[in-house]
């Protein structure tokens, strides 16, 4: 056989395997509104940058008729490519081949590319679209999943791991995305749950559809399992590319710098915040007066909206923002918002991203449901995350900072590097109304006109304590600044913190309130 005929033979074999599950299966996939695995990879990565590995891997199972089955690529495509010219490792499960089910060799392909990603310190992107474990391969499927989860954990905090749910991801399979850094879901296409509607119906008698149980919206809004929500696969890929542009490619480097740009003209920071502290505003409007080109890439937008997290750039460098949202539930902290913020703080800390905290919260959300849901344990997560973070941490207190909330939102005491306050800041153990009722209770109850005395006492307390100067007098605030100076002060603080170098006491690791 000449070289020429060998090459032609290779091309023939490749074409055959690249058909995946065949024309009919591909048509079915398209009818469901889904792209095929190969189409997805091409759409996501830079043009012509994808190189595939393990194309010719075959399964070796024999039970249950498997020996007569030909499964191209064993249902998954792995390879490397680039996004914005930076290398990434990627795998995409192929639903057209045996429903994308995971068998021994399928898992081996995935673990191979995961090992590459970790060794080479590049981001890992996993496109999940699978019916789950391949029952015919029995325990080998479980072994496969186990190997994947272990590697997800090992790589956590070393390389960015991104999961894209573009199909069913059920049972054990769903733990891999849960262990990764960011999960992307798409309306009507993503499905994530541990036990499906069928089992729930037969065991518990509860009727629920797949979409209601574990659809994209459920995870974006209720469970907090998803970090980004898109209406289409293509929109999802744009979001992934955007995220990649903000984050560093591994924990040993900073995110790629962009040309610095001032915030857009038009929106003035002083005009955003109402003078009455009980009237809300959208904290994102404040963030946009601070970031380069007023751009803000929000993470987990629809989950726990009473706190806002996301990435922005300042003078071209990626910054992580954590900010209370007065527009929702008055910006209180509760179980969900504590979880959301704590995880994001840990991510920024792991990947050398400075954190800017904007504070305006009246306290924690009261309620038996909150207490019984463990707001104590969840609230502690934010304290832990901020305390352990060694990246530059800058806080700006805009209005209210009462009680435990003041401490939790990156106060000086949790080792924030620079704490600024606006003149409208109220840093106190409690709001004036609540405090006056407690501290002056005797006086008020014994007075001839209690209501008048109460109002008087509230006013007294307000003038004395509901301002930033008491805290400033103790050095708990570094400086009281004018709102229009906010961006400038933060930028200077970041510049000074460029080479921040602190170490935590030596230990294997702490015990965060999981």
């Amino acid at each position, binding site marked *: 056989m000449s070289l020429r005929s060998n090459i032609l033979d290779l091309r023939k074999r490749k074409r055959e395997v690249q058909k995946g599950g065949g024309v009919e299966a591909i048509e079915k996939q398209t009818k469901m509104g889904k792209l095929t695995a190969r189409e997805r990879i091409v759409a996501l990565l830079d043009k012509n940058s994808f190189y595939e590995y393990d194309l010719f891997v075959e399964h070796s199972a024999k039970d249950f008729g498997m020996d007569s089955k030909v499964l191209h690529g064993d249902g998954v495509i792995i390879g490397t490519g680039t996004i914005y010219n930076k290398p990434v490792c990627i795998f995409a499960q192929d639903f057209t081949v045996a429903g994308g089910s995971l068998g021994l060799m399928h898992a081996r392909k995935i673990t191979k590319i995961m090992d590459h990603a970790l060794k080479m310190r590049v981001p890992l992107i996993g496109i999940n679209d699978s019916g789950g474990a391949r029952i015919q391969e029995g325990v080998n499927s479980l072994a496969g999943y186990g190997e994947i989860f272990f590697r997800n954990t090992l790589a956590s905090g070393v390389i960015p791991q991104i999961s894209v749910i573009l199909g069913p991801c059920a049972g054990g399979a769903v733990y891999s995305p849960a262990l990764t850094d960011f999960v992307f879901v798409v309306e009507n296409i993503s499905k994530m749950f541990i036990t499906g509607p069928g089992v729930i119906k037969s065991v*518990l008698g509860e009727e629920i559809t797949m979409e209601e149980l574990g659809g994209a919206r459920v995870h974006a809004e209720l469970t907090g399992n998803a970090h980004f929500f898109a209406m289409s696969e293509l929109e999802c890929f744009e979001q992934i590319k955007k995220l990649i542009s903000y984050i560093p490619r591994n924990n040993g480097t900073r995110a790629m710098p962009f040309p610095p740009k001032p915030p857009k003209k038009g929106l003035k920071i002083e005009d955003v915040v109402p003078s009455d502290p*009980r009237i809300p505003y*959208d904290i994102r409007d404040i963030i946009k007066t601070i970031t380069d080109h007023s751009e803000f890439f929000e993470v987990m937008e629809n989950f726990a909206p009473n706190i806002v997290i996301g990435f922005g750039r300042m003078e071209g460098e990626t910054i992580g923002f954590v900010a209370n949202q007065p*527009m*929702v539930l008055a910006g209180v902290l509760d179980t969900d918002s504590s979880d959301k913020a704590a995880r994001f703080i840990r991510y920024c800390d792991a990947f050398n991203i400075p954190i800017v905290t904007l504070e305006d919260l009246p306290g924690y959300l009261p309620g038996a449901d909150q207490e019984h849901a463990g707001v104590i344990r969840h609230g502690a997560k934010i304290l832990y995350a901020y305390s352990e973070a060694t990246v530059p941490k800058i806080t700006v207190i805009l209005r209210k900072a009462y009680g435990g909330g003041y401490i939790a939102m990156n106060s000086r005491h949790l080792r924030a590097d620079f704490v600024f306050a606006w003149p409208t800041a109220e840093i106190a153990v409690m709001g004036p109304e609540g405090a006056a009722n407690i501290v002056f209770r005797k006086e008020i109850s014994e007075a001839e006109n209690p209501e008048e005395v109460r109002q008087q006492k509230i006013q007294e307390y307000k003038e004395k304590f509901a301002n930033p100067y008491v805290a400033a007098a103790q050095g708990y605030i570094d400086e009281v600044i004018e709102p229009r100076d906010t961006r400038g002060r933060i930028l200077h603080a970041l510049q000074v913190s460029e080479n921040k170098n602190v170490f935590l006491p030596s230990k294997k690791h702490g015990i965060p309130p999981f």
Partner: protein
Amino acid sequence: MTDKKELKNLVIEGVVYKTTYTWKFENRVKWETPNPNLIYSFIPGTIIDIFVKPRAKVKEGTTLLLLEAMKMQNQVRMPFDGEIVKLFIKKDEVIPKNHLMLEIKPVKIK
């Protein structure tokens, strides 16, 4: 600038803030003091056997009925010495979670 959503009141430590609610907050389960004389199912399942009748005097710990769920026969037991007031379920009935099964009342038993 700001959402055109209707602003509602939220009281935190005596101060009334104007803000919007989340779906989770609006649909939260409000606390109701449980009535110790009412026994609810803790899991959906099938009543496969009932061992007591109204007016029966039952000692603490006695099995009242068997609720089959998750492939297990769960024994629902008497929480304190007392008397059965009323049964709200019958044999072979399939019930959901938090379904009222029986009412009891404390009674001294020698």
